[in-house]
């Protein structure tokens, strides 16, 4: 049954059904509604979880890390500056191999201060060891949480994950969402079975000191677990499809790519606009398609190369910038396609909440087909 609800509420409802035992979070726009809803659910005894109120995001994720090590399924949510404050704990959570699931309501990073959407926050944590999934709409945002817990808690993976959805554009937008029942979620996602945990009877310390003789090998093992997460995601996404009818087994999803000459590549809600733009361009006779990157970490380079092998021109839409280098997605797509004869261009777009319309997507395609790229799109030169 489809219900009409706010994206944040859909996420909170699905998180509730994933039965986290400990939630620690600190409110920050545009993530606040999620944790506000969850706090209310705990207060109303609808959710049997320990809700820890903390004084900062650093403490929020630290509390989650400790609770996860103690053997609890944990949840948090944050965005932007809050995620930046978690930076150190993020690396520790991945290194200690704790399967924490955290929602990122994507927002730009200051300065200048901006509460609006882009994907700079989670992209900036791309090297932290967390898996990263990006939702195109609120249904996918909700669904990805169940998949994330399943993948993260797999004893062959044991890594934390960000479920990213665009702040405001999705988090504050009302859309029809199908919420599975508690029984259906329980059937998909079994109770958390910790691989190892803090236990006074058999004491353990996590994330212990590693000398130069061992550190490299620990990092190698995290890297290997990242790559294994691809297969685990495919499996969990397929099982989800079998149970709920929405298949997420694709790490990247093509839209009208089959005979395309030019392909757009994007992540998150911008894909919805891009699909409409592709339809209009197709109606006008242009052979354009879209590749939606659902999983950014681990980066599905071979899957991207395979999905784009028929196109001659690739235009990557980057809602982030690695200052002094270019967009993060574009850089990695170029690496994935290196050695091919394809022209790959990167466009920095939609930073700090700037709106993207179908005509902007069409303009990007025109630029790419003229060989113009690796640039900021829509730069307002009159204010420079």
């Amino acid at each position: 049954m489809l219900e009409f609800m706010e994206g944040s509420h859909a996420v909170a409802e699905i998180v509730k059904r994933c039965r986290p035992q400990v939630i620690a979070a600190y409110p920050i726009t545009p993530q606040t509604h999620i944790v506000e809803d969850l706090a209310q659910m705990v207060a109303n005894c609808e959710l049997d979880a320990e809700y820890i109120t903390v004084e900062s995001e650093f403490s929020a994720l630290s509390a989650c890390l400790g609770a996860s090590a103690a053997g609890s399924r944990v949840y948090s949510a944050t965005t932007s500056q809050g995620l930046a404050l978690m930076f150190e704990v993020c690396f520790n959570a991945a290194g200690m191999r704790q399967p924490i699931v955290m929602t990122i309501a994507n927002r730009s990073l200051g300065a200048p201060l901006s509460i609006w959407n882009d994907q700079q926050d989670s992209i900036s944590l791309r090297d932290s060891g967390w898996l990263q999934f990006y939702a195109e709409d609120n249904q996918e945002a909700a669904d990805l949480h169940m998949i994330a817990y399943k993948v993260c808690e797999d004893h062959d993976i044991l890594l934390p994950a960000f479920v990213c959805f665009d702040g405001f554009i999705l988090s504050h937008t009302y859309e029809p969402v199908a919420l599975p029942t508690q029984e259906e979620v329980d059937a998909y996602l079994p109770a958390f079975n910790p691989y190892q945990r803090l236990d006074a009877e058999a004491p353990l310390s996590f994330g212990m000191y590693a000398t130069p003789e061992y550190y490299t090998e620990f990092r190698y093992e995290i890297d290997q677990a990242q790559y294994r997460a691809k297969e685990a995601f495919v499996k969990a996404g397929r099982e989800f499809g079998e149970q709920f009818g929405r298949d997420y087994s694709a790490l990247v999803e093509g839209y009208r790519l089959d005979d395309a000459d030019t392909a757009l590549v994007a992540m998150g809600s911008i894909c919805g606009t891009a699909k409409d733009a592709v339809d209009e361009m197709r109606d006008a006779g242009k052979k354009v398609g879209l590749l939606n990157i659902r999983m950014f970490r681990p980066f599905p380079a071979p899957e991207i190369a395979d999905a784009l092998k028929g196109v001659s021109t690739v235009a990557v839409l980057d809602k982030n910038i690695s200052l002094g280098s270019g967009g993060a997605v574009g850089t990695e797509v170029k690496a994935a396609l290196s050695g091919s004869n394809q022209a790959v261009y990167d466009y920095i777009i939609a930073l700090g909440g700037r709106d993207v319309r179908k005509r902007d997507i069409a303009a990007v395609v025109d630029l790419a087909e003229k060989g113009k790229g690796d640039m900021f799109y829509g730069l307002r030169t009159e204010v420079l």
Partner: protein
Amino acid sequence: MALRVGCASPPGRALENKTGAWRVFKPVFEPEKCSKCGMCAMVCPEGCVRETEEGTFEPDLDYCKGCGICEEVCPKKSIRMEKEEK
């Protein structure tokens, strides 16, 4: 030693971390000059100076990082730091 997931370890594993490898200067104790005051053992930040049966003191070179504080505090100047060639 096989790696354990998450670099998790039971108590006592710090003993396997032989910090003596970090050392440039090693302390040389001369027990004949020692007044047995125990200052060297008290100030050692690694806790790796131990008392012998004779009541004098000796460093555990597996863990001594060569900081030289023992040399600094010894009232009898019975400890000297020597460049260690490896």
